[in-house]
């Protein structure tokens, strides 16, 4: 067992960005990370990207709280959850840097301006990043960080990279001023491998693994440290080498039940080999939680805790 697999190792960084292709179980993994941290007695913030216009909250649904807003609320012992809203970021920014801030903040709340800010180039993403920054900086009454761990359910690959690339692109266009300064403050958190790391969730299928490897490269290019890869819905290989060749011989005789699960095992082996060969970071296979085995979030928390 590698040293990175010792207990607590999966949560050795304060900020955990959970990302990956659509449909691989990102949200469930993000929820499991938050619960795992809370089980260790930490105060956790679990965030997802949303907007006041879109009422659906995938994170909230896992806790039976589909109405999450931009204000963190306690959803489980030790876990607070909220959404990152662009408009909240805009308002916080306006209040922080602009004299007569409250007036401007009121203007920002006007429907027309908000609609523009939603669609104008990068203003949306900038707002989300600023909201995230302010949550990271929140302190308790003793001046210590309010949240010991921050877990973010990031959007799918392309949108994650759009967010993580933004600070560098934006600093090229806007090298000075309050926006640039806020961006650098954010980078100090998110680009520091002692503080933050991205977890890429994928499943043992050829295309998702390829996309995960591309995401590793993309994140490295935007200076976001990659903490590891989580191979979700992994099916353990029960076959010893001699048993495997016997099984292959039996399966080649005719099509039968069990063939699909056998192929899944093979895809899992391929995925492990490809990922381990290409990524030096931690690789965590997580067994599938069958649909009829109760709450998938709770099951995954257990599986993750066992993996850690």
């Amino acid at each position: 067992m590698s040293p990175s697999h010792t207990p607590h190792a999966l949560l050795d960084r304060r900020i955990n960005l959970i990302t990956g292709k659509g449909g691989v179980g990102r949200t469930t993994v993000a929820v499991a990370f938050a619960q795992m941290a809370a089980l260790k007695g930490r105060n956790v913030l679990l965030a997802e990207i949303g907007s006041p216009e879109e009422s659906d909250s995938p994170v909230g649904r896992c806790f039976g709280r589909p109405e999450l807003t931009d204000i963190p609320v306690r959803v489980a012992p030790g876990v607070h959850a909220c959404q990152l809203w662009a408009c909240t970021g805009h308002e916080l920014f306006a209040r922080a840097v602009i004299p007569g801030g409250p007036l401007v903040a009121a203007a920002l709340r006007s429907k027309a301006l908000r609609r523009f800010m939603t669609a104008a180039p990068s203003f949306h993403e900038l707002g989300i990043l600023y909201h995230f920054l302010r949550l990271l900086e929140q302190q308790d009454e003793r001046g210590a960080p309010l949240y010991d761990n921050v877990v973010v359910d990031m959007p799918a690959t392309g949108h994650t990279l759009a967010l993580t690339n933004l600070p560098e692109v934006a600093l090229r266009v806007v090298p000075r001023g309050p926006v640039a300064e806020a961006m650098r403050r954010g980078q100090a958190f998110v680009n520091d491998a002692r503080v933050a790391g991205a977890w890429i969730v994928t499943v043992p299928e050829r295309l998702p693994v390829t996309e995960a490897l591309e995401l590793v490269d993309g994140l490295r290019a935007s200076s976001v440290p990659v903490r590891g890869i989580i191979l979700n819905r992994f099916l353990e290989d029960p076959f010893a080498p001699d048993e495997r060749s016997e099984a292959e011989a039996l399966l080649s005789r005719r099509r039968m039940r069990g063939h699909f699960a056998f192929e899944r095992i093979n895809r899992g082996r391929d995925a492990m080999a490809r990922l381990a060969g290409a990524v030096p970071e931690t690789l965590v296979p997580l067994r599938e939680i069958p649909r009829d085995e109760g709450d998938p979030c709770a099951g995954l928390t257990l599986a993750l805790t066992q993996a850690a």
Partner: protein
Amino acid sequence: MSASTPSVGQWLRNKRVIVCCGAGGVGKTTVSASLALGAARAGLRVVAITVDPSRRLAEALGIARNLPSPTELSHERLRAAGVEPPGTLAAWMLDPQLVCDRVVNAVSPSEGARRQLLGNRLYQNVSTLIAGMHEYTAVEALHEFIRDDRYDLVVLDTPPSRNALRFLETPARANAFLDPRILSFFIPSQDSAFHRAGSKLINKLLDLGLGRAAREELQEFLSLFQVILRHLNRNQEEMRRFFGSPDVSFLLVTSLFQAAQDEAHHFEQRAREVGVRMGGYILNQSLAHVEELPPPHGLLSADAPPSARRALDHLTALAALDERTARGHLALATALREQTGARTPLWVLPRLTGQDMDLTALVDLAEVLMSTPATTSPPIAARSR
């Protein structure tokens, strides 16, 4: 086969445009590529449009990515895939920035404006900077082909997103950005006093936040790009009306891992609100047909070695796993069938073994796709038990 359970092959006969929607990771791109291939094999002239697909799909079809226009598959490839004249297949993996450049080249009011916009740093990152640019360009590309009589059928694979409905909302979101009343505050030289005051405040704000140089670059971008966006917007509006016509059908591709029932419900509701035709649902990669296969029993003779016995034990456990998955898939298909009602077809596509994405795999899937009848209630696989 009765009219109420058409196969996809029968269903697509009178369609001009099929829009494949679905959340990421459901195999939407593969399904739409197979759909296009199947239609071409049935003798139609087909163009498949897809945004940012996997490299492997481009490889499987044997075409380059990010070309400025659709590419016809080579004769050898078409023959290998069983496509005979008059059937043809062209594919276009489009790059939002390229589509946007084409529009800029076509509609810029002057050569100076064109060069200025192409040189603007914000414009150069427009596809990453403007939310929804992928969706706009997909619609724009579709707009180019609806009047193109080289093709009988256009299959559009929509950009991947968590929300399968996002694509339907594209025109509305484009309008929000293009609202001239709002945009005008950001662009200098407006004549009313109200506008001047508003612009001044906004300039001040932007100067404080971005600095003057960046603010000026943003304004240059907005004023130049307005023309382009107006053009895109006109086409989006036209497409919105076109989406409601009987020639266009929306397909929701969904998988068995996700909350397919909720997704289908929301999609149907939203489709009705937007006024588009819900063509059908494709439940992808089902294992429901596993129940038709024999279990791994009676395969070993009495003198089989212990390793073979252990292998068989493992296979028996795996068979139970397959059965369990199959039961889950079947229950979901049944529930979805009941929910969607008899009018909207639901196709349950079996997961094929040995799925490596190449032309042969696409042909296999196309064959299944074209011939699978829509499920009635109870689904086909349930009756054969």
